[in-house]
Structure formats: structure tokens, C-alpha cells
């Protein structure tokens, strides 16, 4: 009788027999770095470290651009094509008619909204200047003083939108936890127990991740260094 050989991402060791990969390392890193940098951005701007706040925003922009690219070439659960779905699927999910790996249809909706809200927030920050005219966003020179001042006010108000979405996000995790689904550990370890018959995550290529990162850093560096058409920016 032939020995049974595990295939695909089936467990190889008895210890982790119940879990399979669901989130790749880039997705998890982007998630936790975003959480940390958003907190740091909030802290730094409220403690007279507007310079750090601006750099933190640039780091967030790098992560967002990276994640956008990774959404096209990353692992199966990282790709927009696998989790951006229409309202029909969302309603089907709410009635219990959905199973799969990665973002649930409703979760995907929340992730897209958070992602867009963060892009808006960073965009506003790029063209803002502080009330005293001591600090300027890297692209503030492209707009008028009035626009820049207004952008700062909206940037400050828009943070409440971001905050509301974060609260909703955490509340959803607590809600699922109460109903017996643990979502935090998979976002740390990348692995979760899947329903039988569910396709596990197909990983992306590490070199594709490096290319995405290089492009993201390149674009942000381009903005910060003031290469054309952005003009020169002197960090305060």
C-alpha cells in the first residue's frame, strides 16, 4: 500500500494540521505597518513633531502604492480580482451563501473603503501646509496658499472618517470573535483553519513583491525629491 503523501498546501507536520495559509507576508506587513504608522501620525502631529508626521505620511503613501500594485500581482487573497465583488455576492454572503478564503465579500467592501479613505487622507496631506507656514507638504507648492490651508482643514476633518472606519473595522473583528471566528491571529501568523474543500491561498512571487516595493519607493521618492513636474521641496 503506497504511503500517503500530502499535496498542495496540506499539512506536513502534525502540529499545524488544522491551519492553512490565508494571508501572505506582504499583506500582513502592510496591515500592521499601516496600523502603526497611522497611530504614529496621529501622535506626532499632536506632539509638535510635524516633520515626523510628514515622513510618516510618506511612508504610508509608499505602503498604499505597494499594496495597490500587490493587488494585481500578489498572492490569490491579495488580488483585487479575487475579492472585489458586486452587491449580489455581498447579499449572498449576508444570507450565509458564501465560502472561501481571504476577504469575505463584506470585509472586502470595508477594506476597499478604508484603502480609498487613506489615499484621500494622504493626498490632502501632500498639498497641506501648517497654520504657521513652518511646515509644508511635499506637493503644497503646486497649489495656492488658500487651497493648501483648506486642504489642511479637510485633512484634519477627514481623519474622523478614517477613525470611524478603523472603529468599524475593530468592531467587526470583535463581532466575529464573539461568534467564534478569530481573525486577529491569521493576520499575524498568516494561517487559519479552513472549511474542508476550500482552496487555500496561492502565494505570490517574492521577486514580484520586491519590484512592487521598488516602484512604490521610487514614486514616493520622486514626489519627495521634487523631481519634475513636482518642483522642489525642502523638508522642514
Amino acid at each position, binding site marked *: 500500500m503506497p504511503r500517503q503523501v500530502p499535496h498542495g498546501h496540506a499539512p506536513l507536520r502534525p502540529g499545524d494540521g488544522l491551519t492553512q495559509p490565508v494571508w501572505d507576508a506582504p499583506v500582513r506587513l502592510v496591515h500592521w505597518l499601516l496600523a502603526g504608522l497611522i497611530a504614529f501620525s496621529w501622535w506626532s502631529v*499632536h506632539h*509638535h513633531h510635524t516633520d515626523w508626521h510628514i515622513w510618516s505620511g510618506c511612508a504610508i503613501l509608499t505602503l498604499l502604492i505597494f499594496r495597490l500594485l500587490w493587488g494585481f500581482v500578489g498572492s490569490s487573497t491579495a488580488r483585487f480580482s479575487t475579492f472585489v465583488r458586486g452587491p449580489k455576492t455581498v447579499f449572498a454572503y449576508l444570507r450565509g451563501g458564501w465560502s472561501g478564503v481571504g476577504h469575505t465579500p463584506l470585509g472586502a467592501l470595508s477594506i476597499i473603503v478604508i484603502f480609498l479613505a487613506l489615499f484621500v487622507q494622504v493626498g490632502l496631506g501632500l498639498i497641506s*501646509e501648517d*497654520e*504657521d*507656514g*513652518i511646515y*509644508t507638504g511635499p506637493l*503644497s*507648492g503646486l497649489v495656492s*496658499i*488658500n487651497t*493648501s*490651508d483648506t486642504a489642511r482643514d479637510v485633512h*484634519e476633518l477627514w481623519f474622523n472618517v478614517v477613525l470611524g472606519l478603523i472603529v468599524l473595522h475593530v468592531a467587526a473583528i470583535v463581532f466575529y470573535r464573539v461568534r467564534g471566528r478569530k481573525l486577529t491571529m491569521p493576520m499575524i501568523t498568516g494561517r487559519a483553519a479552513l472549511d474542508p474543500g476550500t482552496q487555500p491561498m496561492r502565494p505570490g512571487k517574492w521577486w514580484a513583491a520586491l519590484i512592487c516595493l521598488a516602484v512604490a519607493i521610487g514614486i514616493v521618492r520622486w514626489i519627495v525629491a*521634487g523631481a519634475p513636474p513636482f*518642483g*522642489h*521641496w*525642502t523638508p*522642514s
Partner: protein
Amino acid sequence: MRAASFTFAACAALLCGCGGPQTSQANNAQANISNDSRDVNQATGSNMEARLSLGDAAKVMHARHEGMETIGKNFKVLNRELNGSSPDLAAVRASAATINQLAHNASSWFPEGTGPDVGKTGAKPDIWLPQNKADFATKLHNFQVAAPRFNAAVSGNDLNATKASFAELAGTCKACHDKYRTDMHH
């Protein structure tokens, strides 16, 4: 309301810009430095004058607010010009002169009795605490030294020297604001 205050600030900027010192800025800078210790004593009311009447306090606070706003407005102009690829030197010089003039005026902006207990202001009451008076006076003094220096730097054509001097001036604003200014939202 906002448009009105912008217009006022713009007019003030224009007036100050025209009336600002055009010649021998280096000499003016020297003169300001030697006058500063006296100015600073007036600034924090350390000569133990009686507290200002409410009307006078309101006048001082209004002048302070408008002055600070005009300084900020000119900083924004300077940021744009000095970060741009071809700075408009006339605009840079006008803003530097305005800031220099207002820095000089700032000596009379912080008498005792013009804190948040009297009216709406971004000035923290810490300014007038006995243990902070010397520190506040030093910080104001640093600003009043840096402003004429910057005004002198812009008279030349050395953009790098101008930028360095501008950074130094901005640093004196920040040093004081970090400690003595509340986060105001208009």
C-alpha cells in the same frame, strides 16, 4: 469673515512691505540686537506695571493676532518662493521686510493680562508664569534676532544663505510655539 481677515492681512502685509526698511539692513539688524533686551522686558511686563484695562488688553490681543497671522501668511509666501525653481526675489524681500517689522512690533504683544483668561487667544498662560518669563523672553529675543538677519540675507543673491537663514528663523517660531502656543483652530 475669513475672507475679511485675509483681506486685512493682505493689506497689512502690503503696508508693512512698502514701509519696511530698504537700506542698510545689516545696520538695522545690529541696532535691533542691541535694543532687544529692553524690548523683551516690555514684552512680558516684567517692569511690574499695573494690569492692562480690558479695552487695552483687547487692543493688544487684536494687534498680536493680526500680526501673527500676517507673519504666518508671509511664511507661506516665502515657502512657495524659496522652494520653487525660480524664486521671485522682490516677493521674498517684501515678505522678509514685513516679518522683520512685525518681529520688532512683537515686543509689545505680550504684556501681562493678555492671556486666555481675558479673551480668545492661542497664547498659553504659561507665558506669564514667573518661572517661564526668562525662557519666554529668550525665545522672543531669538525671533527678534533671526528676523533682521533673514531680512539682511535676502538683500543678497545667495539663495542657499537665504534658505539657511529662513530655516533658522522658522526654528525660532517653532521653539516658542511648541511650548507657548495652543493648537488653535481659527
